[in-house]
């Protein structure tokens, strides 16, 4: 067996190099073929079935196809928001304090009842003003809302406390499944264990820990640009496969067609070699990033010079190139996703400490700062999560970079639960934190930067309080002119990552989706949360 495995390994080494192709689904020009069952992988099991309550993609991938949202991201252009249950884009009043949404009048729940504004009101009331005993982790994202009204049968109205730049886009949050008011009235927790929406697929059963099935909703309201009814698929089946290598095996043996979160470069290359004629690959920068978080409550990390030195010591440009070959990080960026709508240009970015391209000069500056702060031979424990992709390789790279300026960091790897417990208790010196969002939106990506004792409680693990920074974040949130907002965000980056060097990104993640090329009509986006209702996905016949 050993000999055979060596022979197999040798064979795979000599196979032709991986191909990186653009999916036919994106190329367009084909007429979608109806029918078939899409089989895809989800690498975790959803805790409950309630999108309002959970925060994991493992809920969205199998369950999102059962639901509709008020707005969603356009499957053909994932940077744009398009109406879903809404009949048109939202209308803002002159003072920008009332947002009115007209609803479609042809929508039915899977139990046959018609959807009205009462359902949308009940849904958003549950999300924004949850009753006692109901958890809504994203209620804070809608703190700007003072009331949700249903003035007419098909009109919904959001009253805002102040004009908000992000509110309208937040209506496309993939978590905000629209629920039935009647079901919520009967039992506010009905959706934790039941599924009943207006989405393209109705619930067709699941086996705990194994799979989740949906079948075509014949009454779905959606149509494609040619007027054909959606969805194209007859059904879908989500396979719960927690081990990523077992996931690769499932695609390689064609038992699964796609996994929507992502694979490593190595796994992509393995699949490319094994399925040279059957594989398509889509790749995209990801709104996920690891942060280096010095605990400002512990010495010497209360000194901005030390924190800045930690950032300066890391050559992100070289790291991005090297690490992107083995793990899922690639691009260098500030607090906003590189190449995203709020990202700074590289010319501006390189002016921030630790983001310049002259690695040697940066390291010299780091040494000087450490000497000035009286800790030329700084040593600390570096708290990290025991996840190999990408936490461990990123941490190993950081530790090596720090070593070159005389810093000794001990890699303190912990399982997720104790790692989280240490983060939340402030029981660490420097940690590798992370963040993923569904949207390029400063209000989301800056949530960790609010003062730790105020809006950043439980989010800001650098544990600083800074009223100036709070004011800057608040100001950008209220600024409705996009150009001015970008400038405000740039100033925040300069202040938070350079001047105060509170916490800073290492490298932004890079999403890689290798999948069977019979899957069409799905386009990769900058996150693994949106574009998952599968309404436009279809299967090409081979």
């Amino acid at each position: 067996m050993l000999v055979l495995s060596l022979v197999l390994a040798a064979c795979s080494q000599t196979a032709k190099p991986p191909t990186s192709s653009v999916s036919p689904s994106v190329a367009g020009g084909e007429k979608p073929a109806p029918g078939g069952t899409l089989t895809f992988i989800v690498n975790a099991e959803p805790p409950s079935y309630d999108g309002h309550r959970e925060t994991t993609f493992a809920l969205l991938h199998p369950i999102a196809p059962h639901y509709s949202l008020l707005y969603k991201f356009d499957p053909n252009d994932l940077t744009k928001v398009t109406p879903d249950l809404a009949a048109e884009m939202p209308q803002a009043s002159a003072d920008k304090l009332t947002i009115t949404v007209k609803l479609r009048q042809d929508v039915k729940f899977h139990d046959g009842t018609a959807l009205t504004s009462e359902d949308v009101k009940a849904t958003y009331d549950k999300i924004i003003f949850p009753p006692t005993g109901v958890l809504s982790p994203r209620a804070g994202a809608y703190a700007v809302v003072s009331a949700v009204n249903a003035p007419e049968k098909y009109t919904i109205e959001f009253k805002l406390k102040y004009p908000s730049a992000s509110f309208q886009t937040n209506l496309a949050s993939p978590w905000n499944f629209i629920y039935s008011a009647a079901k919520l009235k009967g039992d506010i927790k009905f959706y934790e264990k039941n599924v009943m929406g207006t989405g393209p697929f109705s619930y067709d059963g699941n086996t705990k820990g194994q799979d989740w099935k949906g079948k075509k909703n014949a009454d779905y309201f959606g149509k494609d640009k040619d007027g054909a009814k959606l969805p194209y698929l007859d059904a879908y089946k989500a396979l719960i496969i927690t081990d990523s290598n077992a996931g690769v095996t499932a695609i390689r043996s064609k038992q699964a067609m796609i996994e929507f979160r992502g694979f490593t470069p190595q796994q992509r290359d393995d699949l490319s070699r094994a399925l040279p004629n059957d594989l398509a690959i889509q790749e995209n920068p990801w709104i996920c990033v690891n942060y280096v978080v010095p605990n400002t409550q512990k010495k010497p990390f209360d000194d901005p010079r030390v924190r800045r030195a930690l950032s300066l010591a890391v050559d992100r440009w070289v790291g991005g190139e090297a690490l992107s070959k083995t793990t899922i990080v690639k691009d260098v960026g500030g607090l906003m996703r590189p190449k995203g709508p709020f990202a700074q240009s590289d010319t501006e970015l390189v002016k921030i400490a630790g983001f310049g391209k002259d690695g040697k000069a940066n390291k010299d500056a780091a040494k000087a700062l450490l000497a000035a702060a009286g800790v030329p031979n700084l040593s600390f424990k570096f708290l990290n999560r025991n996840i190999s992709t990408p936490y461990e390789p990123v941490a190993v790279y950081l530790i090596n970079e720090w070593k070159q300026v005389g810093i000794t960091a001990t890699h303190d790897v912990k399982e997720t639960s104790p790692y989280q417990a240490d983060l939340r208790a402030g029981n660490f010196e420097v940690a590798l934190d992370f963040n993923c969002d569904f949207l390029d939106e400063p209000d989301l990506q800056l949530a960790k930067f609010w003062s730790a004792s105020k809006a950043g409680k439980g989010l800001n693990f650098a544990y600083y309080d800074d009223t100036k920074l709070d004011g800057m974040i608040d100001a950008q949130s209220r600024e409705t002119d996009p150009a001015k907002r970008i400038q405000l965000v740039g100033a925040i980056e300069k202040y938070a990552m350079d001047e105060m060097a509170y916490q800073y990104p290492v490298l932004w993640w890079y999403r890689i989706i290798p999948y069977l090329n019979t899957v069409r009509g799905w386009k990769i986006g900058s996150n693994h949360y949106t574009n998952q209702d599968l309404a436009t996905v279809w299967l090409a016949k081979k």
Partner: protein
Amino acid sequence: MRRYIFGRLLLMIPTLVGVAILTFVIMRAVPGDIVALRYAGSNVPQEIIDQERHLLGLDKPLWVQFTDWMGSISRLDLGQSLWTGNSVVDEVQVRMPLSIELAVLATLFAVVLAIPLGVIAAVKQDTWVDYAIRVFSIGGLAMPSFWIGIMMVLITLTLWGWAPPVVFTPLFEDPVANLAGLILPAIAVGYRYSAVSMRMTRSTVLEVLREDYVRTARAKGLRETLVVVRHALRNALLPVVTVVSLEFAFLIGGLVVTEQVFNLNGIGKLLVDAVAHRDYTLVQALVLLLAAVFVLVNFIVDMVYVVLDPRIRYS
């Protein structure tokens, strides 16, 4: 005998209570909890974390949590998974048939392989046959079953583009699909398992073959096959039965990595996920359940001894 059986059954209670206390304490001693994990990486404010802890009863004093749990157990209520909110019985019910079937298949494979080969090795002691069987069995001990599993999947994938089904099909729904899913893991696990039993069979048969009554049987002119099977093997089986039974009990919940490799939705994977999630109720219930399986299997083995060896009498 009846009194002995009754006494043994009663003794199971303090054993299981001890296991329950230990599991409760160990789980609470492990840092981190389910709520921090549930919202890991999400921008969830602290008050949500606190509310969730309250809803799950994790903010109660430990002794209250323990007495609540023991109260439920005494009513045969194993509680609800903190992670999914489903009853523990539902969670276990889905996975148990797979775990039992895999354990049975692996045991069958192991026994069918181990006992004949063990006997042959003993009878042909120090010949090339014995050496070959010993090398084969040492191979089984040296290679972890998950590695054997990975190799088997790689080989079938590379040569035939086939891998075992990633979804479990119940035996009575489709026996072929069921077997296709379980045959490779059963072989991977059964090989290691057979190696242990094979070596045990060989050494006990060797020992018995030197006994006086075997010499007597041979002196009476019995055929060698009869001597080995009827006189030697039957008496050599006692330790083998113990090893096989305990391995079987272990297989019900112990095939964690193998279940990962083959994506089998079994009890082992459920237990590891529950530990990783700090799903206290589920872990406590599963450990209790697995302990009960061990205790019960031990009891059954003791009863089987009476059948195998008429000299053994319990009173």
